[in-house]
């Protein structure tokens, strides 16, 4: 075979500086974790690469997670950075099946940031925590000079208690599992993008931010769950690919079964984006054994956070690590991790 020399356009993965795509939840993020964080921090708890670590503390199993929020704008239709931080961290705990016990909140504030806006964010966090029944038990505040941060960043951490006998992990899905989705996709990402870009669409697009721990508790009471994840950055596509890779299974999903609200579809069509890759903040994906799928689905539909729950596909033995989607017109296509930021297309 003729030798192939790589001299054409620069290999993109070899980067000297951090680019925005490293924080997108796509392939660049995965590369950063694989090439830098995992080798440096190497330990069995981290190496599972779930959204939370589960540690043994005597007889108890504790779920631990942390998440930073840097969303622009701070306030968007359907929510704000504070509510997002509380719900997002509760959800990362809940995706292990754990009942959240308490949260911490750390603030990085830019000099000159209006106190009134900070107060609105803090009140919103307090209300979200109260509604979820999870206290914000500790915190920290730092202020940086003007220009060293964009208004405010919030980091929330959380701990929860995993019920005995519950072993949920992105690596536990098995062939034959039914894939359940708790509702419509793309709402949060498009709400933020529409506000950020000053775009106006027919119909209201609101963030779906919601705490999902009660939904998870109801699902666990109804039947066994193998894998759970909330499809945030990178969207449903990234979540399915991550679970397929971690569990070494194939995923077959059906495009027409995946619910997308009309205004969200319209906005995505207009911008040339695919709702599969758009972030959600109040949805979950569950891989459930076929025999308990009906019961778990019914339990989901009985809860306000899961009333639009549907089965979107199943895990299969073949094409391990690959997600295939049956298209609306009857073809099939691969669904992959987004590379970096989703880019509006030229035409």
């Amino acid at each position, binding site marked *: 075979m003729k030798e*192939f020399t790589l001299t054409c*356009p*620069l290999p993109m993965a070899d980067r000297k500086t951090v680019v925005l795509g490293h924080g997108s939840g796509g392939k660049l993020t995965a590369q950063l974790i694989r090439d830098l964080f995992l080798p440096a921090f190497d330990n069995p708890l981290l190496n599972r690469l779930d959204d939370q670590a589960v540690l043994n503390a005597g007889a108890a199993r504790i779920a631990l997670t942390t998440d930073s929020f840097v969303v622009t704008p701070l306030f968007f239709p359907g929510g704000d950075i504070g509510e997002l931080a509380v719900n997002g961290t509760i959800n990362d705990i809940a995706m292990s099946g754990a009942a959240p016990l308490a949260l911490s909140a750390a603030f990085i504030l830019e000099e000159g940031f209006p106190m009134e806006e900070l107060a609105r964010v803090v009140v919103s966090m307090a209300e979200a925590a109260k509604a979820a029944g999870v206290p914000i038990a500790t915190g920290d505040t730092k202020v940086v000079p003007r220009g060293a941060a964009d208004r405010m960043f919030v980091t929330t951490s959380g701990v929860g208690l995993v019920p005995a006998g519950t072993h949920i992990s992105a690596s536990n899905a098995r062939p034959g599992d039914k894939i359940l989705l708790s509702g419509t996709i793309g709402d949060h990402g498009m709400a933020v993008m529409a506000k950020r870009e000053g775009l106006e669409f027919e119909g209201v697009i609101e963030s779906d931010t919601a705490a999902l721990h009660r939904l998870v508790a109801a699902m666990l009471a109804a039947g066994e769950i193998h894998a759970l994840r909330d499809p945030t950055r990178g969207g449903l596509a990234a979540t399915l690919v991550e679970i397929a890779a971690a569990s070494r299974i194939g995923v077959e999903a059906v495009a027409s079964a995946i619910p997308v609200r009309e205004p969200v579809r319209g906005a995505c069509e207009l911008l*040339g984006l695919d709702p599969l890759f758009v972030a959600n903040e109040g949805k979950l994906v569950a891989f459930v054994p076929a025999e308990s799928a009906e019961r778990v689905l019914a339990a989901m539909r009985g809860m306000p956070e899961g009333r639009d729950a549907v089965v979107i596909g199943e895990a299969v033995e073949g094409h391990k690590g690959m997600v295939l989607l049956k298209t609306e017109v009857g073809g099939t*296509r691969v669904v992959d991790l987004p590379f970096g930021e989703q880019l*509006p297309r*030229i035409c």
Partner: protein
Amino acid sequence: MKYVDEFRNHSLAQKLVVEIRRTVTKPWVIMEVCGGQTHSIVKYGLDQLLPGEIELAHGPGCPVCVTSLELIDRAHALARRPDVIFCSFGDMLRVPGSAGDLFQIKAQGGDVRVVYSPLDCLKIARANPENRVVFFAIGFETTAPANAMSVWQARAQGISNYSILVSHVTVPPAMIAVLDSPSNRVQAFLGAGHVCAVMGWEEYEPLAARFRVPIVVTGFEPLDLLEGVLMAVRQLEEGRHEVENQYARAVAREGNQEAKRMIFRVFEPCDRAWRGIGVIPGSGYRLREEFAAYDAARLFDLEGIVSVEPENCISGLILQGAKKPSDCAAFGTLCTPETPLGATMVSAEGACAAYYNYGRHLVS
């Protein structure tokens, strides 16, 4: 969603596929000209639905892919200048030049901004009078009217810190280049619907007659593409070579007169180098002399930037429809969207990227 769901209807798609199967009696090669059509075909798996006799060849209609490396390097040189705010359509940001992409330039301090319309650049220019705002004006006839309008408006509004780096390309000369190529296998075209929405299809009529090739102006939804294929196959089977319009809901024979007027007030035809293909005579637009003050290529010293593209990737053959992405030994192994060897792997509308993102389960 209205005007979208109708064109993705499963049972109507099946009916069209049955009709295509009924009509076809021998092998035909049909080229869809536009990268947006390639994207739809592979995203919806339409090629899997067609009978084996019909081969779809993917055309050169991806403006991101065909923008020459030299022009990209010149754009990057502008984006690195501290006095410049560099504006671009989003999907140009990821295209690598000889040293990195616009994302990296942004990370290193370059002021690079994504715009949805070139008219947004005028707002940016007004808000930043101390900076020079440059828009990377790429695209086919589809983006040309708005890009021309931005220059027209800049002059009308007396905005002097705005200019465009022009990389416009046009479809008919590229189709002629494909048909003139000695290795050409293309027997019919699905015309680029949105290009024709602007330009109409009169200019395709002499082309269909000269090369005796059917051209069906076609839309971008699954049913549009299947119907376009059916119309092309009917012509081929019946020995006709006409220009037909599948995309009647968007395209009229004379096109959009107002948009065409705006294009030719501001631009004039010129020769253009296409990435992976070479110079095609008369296949581009450049700014008319009276708009020289808005031409970034004249305002900034870019002549010294000369780029040489190594010839070890087959994207040129892919853009001409002579090869398929799956014919390339590097596809999916050495060459992926993260490590693109050529332009067709970079843009979402490039044939290689479409195959990789949506269709690689079918490539052995």
